[in-house]
């Protein structure tokens, strides 16, 4: 009898405990697990309360009309300075953008952007912690603030900006293109009418392909694969006339073919893939720092400042150049407010070079990854889209 009662009681207690646990979880963290949409507001609420308590008296004591900053402002920079490292979410297996060299060192276009940030903030391009993240991880690491910045070949979209974090400045204009055999003579979308196209299944790539052909009133036969590698394998074996993917990827694959010159990447671009570093929401200062570093790299190319001539350029005739490089006596480009040193941008440029140098290092004609025409990634002065606010 008592045994039975004991069992009944324990079941009741267990259910009760479960119920409290569930309800407790609901009140404390409202649906944090589901999507990023709900996470950001929850975090913000907490932070606003904190502002009122901490910041207002501080502002009262300090110099006259200092702007009241939202809580979280400056926290990232402080954490980085304490830690001595910038934590970047990166790719480790994307040739050209984020990959490894034979010694296991992180290299690539995206990695250099991370190093530029580290050089600007800490004065040391090696002071990075490159956390390898997967495509599925990109949202969560931003939402949780596990990394300071994601430099991992990430397309800026409105939804990601709303849900994941704050995107900084477009550093690479990618887009879906087509790879064809040079002897096929194809140069335009119309000439591909009725072609067999190799494409990965279930991706936006497949959808973009359908839209592009549908809008032009053309037909095609899709040969779909789960694996990206299978797409190019099939293309190389001649099972399809055309392979489609992001142009940077096509260029990487083309470089790997036995005779790269037998294959052409067409000039057509059927999607917009603006690759952009992103930071977690909530620290406007850090967002500005990352943006300014990107602007610095782009402006440096405009002015012709390279990693080699940073020092000479400090005595340039051009006052704007001297400002950018933080020469003593020149005006503040914002470093005071951003909590950086005057020569932060000079440090970044000296470490990794200007935008064009980074691009050429990996994708130029002598690039160590593969060769990709700059196209849209030319400076605005050269007919491209790379443009940044002035540093002054």
């Amino acid at each position, binding site marked *: 009898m008592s045994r039975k009662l004991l069992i009944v009681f324990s079941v009741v207690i267990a259910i009760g405990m479960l119920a409290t646990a569930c309800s407790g979880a609901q009140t404390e963290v409202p649906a944090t697990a589901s999507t990023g949409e709900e996470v950001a507001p929850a975090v913000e609420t907490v932070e606003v309360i904190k502002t009122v308590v901490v910041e207002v008296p501080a502002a009262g004591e300090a110099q006259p009309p200092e702007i009241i900053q939202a809580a979280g402002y400056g926290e990232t920079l402080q954490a980085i300075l304490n830690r001595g490292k910038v934590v970047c979410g990166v790719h*480790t297996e994307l040739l050209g953008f984020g990959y*490894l060299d034979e*010694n296991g060192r992180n290299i690539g276009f995206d990695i250099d952007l991370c190093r530029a940030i580290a050089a600007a903030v800490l004065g040391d391009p090696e002071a990075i912690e490159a*956390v390898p993240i997967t495509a599925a991880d990109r949202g969560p690491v931003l939402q949780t603030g596990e990394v300071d910045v994601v430099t991992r070949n990430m397309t800026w979209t409105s939804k990601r900006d709303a849900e994941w974090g704050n995107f900084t400045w477009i550093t690479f204009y990618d887009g879906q293109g087509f790879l064809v055999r040079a002897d096929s003579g194809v140069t335009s979308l119309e000439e591909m009418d009725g072609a067999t196209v190799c494409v990965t299944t279930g991706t936006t790539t497949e959808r973009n392909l359908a839209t592009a052909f549908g809008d032009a009133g053309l037909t095609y036969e899709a040969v779909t694969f789960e694996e990206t*590698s299978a797409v190019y*394998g099939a293309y190389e074996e001649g099972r399809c006339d055309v392979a489609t993917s992001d142009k940077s990827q096509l260029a990487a694959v083309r470089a790997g073919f036995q005779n790269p010159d037998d294959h052409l990447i067409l000039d057509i671009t059927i999607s917009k893939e603006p690759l952009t570093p992103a930071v977690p929401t909530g620290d406007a200062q850090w967002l500005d720092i990352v943006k300014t570093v990107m602007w610095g790299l782009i402006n440096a190319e405009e002015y012709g400042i390279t990693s080699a001539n940073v020092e000479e350029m400090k005595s340039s005739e051009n006052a704007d150049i001297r400002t950018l490089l933080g020469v003593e006596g020149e005006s503040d480009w914002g470093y005071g407010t951003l909590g950086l040193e005057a020569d932060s941008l000079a440090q970044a440029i000296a470490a990794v070079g200007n935008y064009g140098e980074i691009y050429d290092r990996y994708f130029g004609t002598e690039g*160590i990854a593969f060769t990709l025409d700059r196209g849209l990634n030319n400076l605005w002065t050269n007919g491209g889209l790379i443009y940044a606010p002035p540093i002054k």
Partner: protein
Amino acid sequence: MTSTSDGVGPPSPPGAMEWIRKNLFSNWYNSLLTILGATVVYFTLINIITWVFNTADWRPVTVAPLLYLVGQYPREELWRAGISLLMVTFLVGMSWGVWKRYVRAFAIFMGILLGILAVFPLETTTITLPIRAFMLINPFLIYLGYRIGRLQSVHGRHVATLWLITLLLIPLVILPGFENSSLLPKVPTTVWGGLLITLLLSVGGIVLSFPIGVLLALGRRSSLPVVKLFSIFFIEVVRGVPLVTILFMFSIILALFLPSESRIDRVIRALMGTVVFSAAYTAENVRGGLQAIPPGQVEAAKAMGLKNFHITILIVLPQALRLVIPTIVGQFISLFKDTTLVYIVGINDLLGIGNAVLNLNPEFVRLQMEVYLFIAVIFWVFSYFMSYASLQLEKALGVGER
């Protein structure tokens, strides 16, 4: 075959020709099958051999052996991985000396392999002379360990204790290091990779999940309802979901729940996932063993006045665990292979490093066959020695010979 026994003694074993005739060409259709089979085998082998030695491009494997071994572990701190290897090889040698045949094959193989690796000609600058010299120490250290292990005064429990210390020391002290330490500077787990992380995750998963699994199995048979319900709930929930789901749970969802100050390391999160998963399966395997113990033994022990704790520790568990060795080892082998799944939560294990190597330069992008085959061989070697050791253990304990 050449020995001829005239008249006396048992008949000599059949000669090769006789054996072939008896087994392969006994009648016309067997002869036909033999010829057909031999043709297929011949061409397959020829093709494989031509592929391996001519067609295949092994540069992705030979160009960066260190990547496969330790991933991105900083090369200037490589000596720490080296010291860890030395400790392990020495202990493997000692284990060989103490436990003889269970580890003999593995120890000899390991010695030979490391010896070959030390002198293997590679067209790479990443393997320097000091590294080769370091590798060459290992076979001798195994032999030294073997001699020490054979000494009368060295017992199994000493070696086991040393293993325990080493297994704690390597992943907790030597490899991660400390903040602000000049001798052992901190190396974040984000740069650990390759075989190193695969072995750490599997050994860690096996060592940690086993006791938890045994406890869960005992809990499931417990007469305490709360313990029993919890065990059943845990086991059934974990066994009801795929490992990928659990890894995602621990890697992403857990991070979203926890405040950013109390962040758990990525590798630890993945390890937690594998331990939880493996513990549930171990529990069910062990429960099978527990149920095979006749209840009469427990009753007899009770009649002798033994306490429940002693009955479990001294009578039930030793027999139950002996019974389930094959299944447990089978499960550990599958856990070892399952660790490749951590690749999808952003940890560069052996498979992840393989993918990274494929992107090392454009010429490697299409060489997946070579890289994946190489990784498969590594996994096979480890799995094979695990099952070999378990077979020896079964023989020694006489499982299934009652």
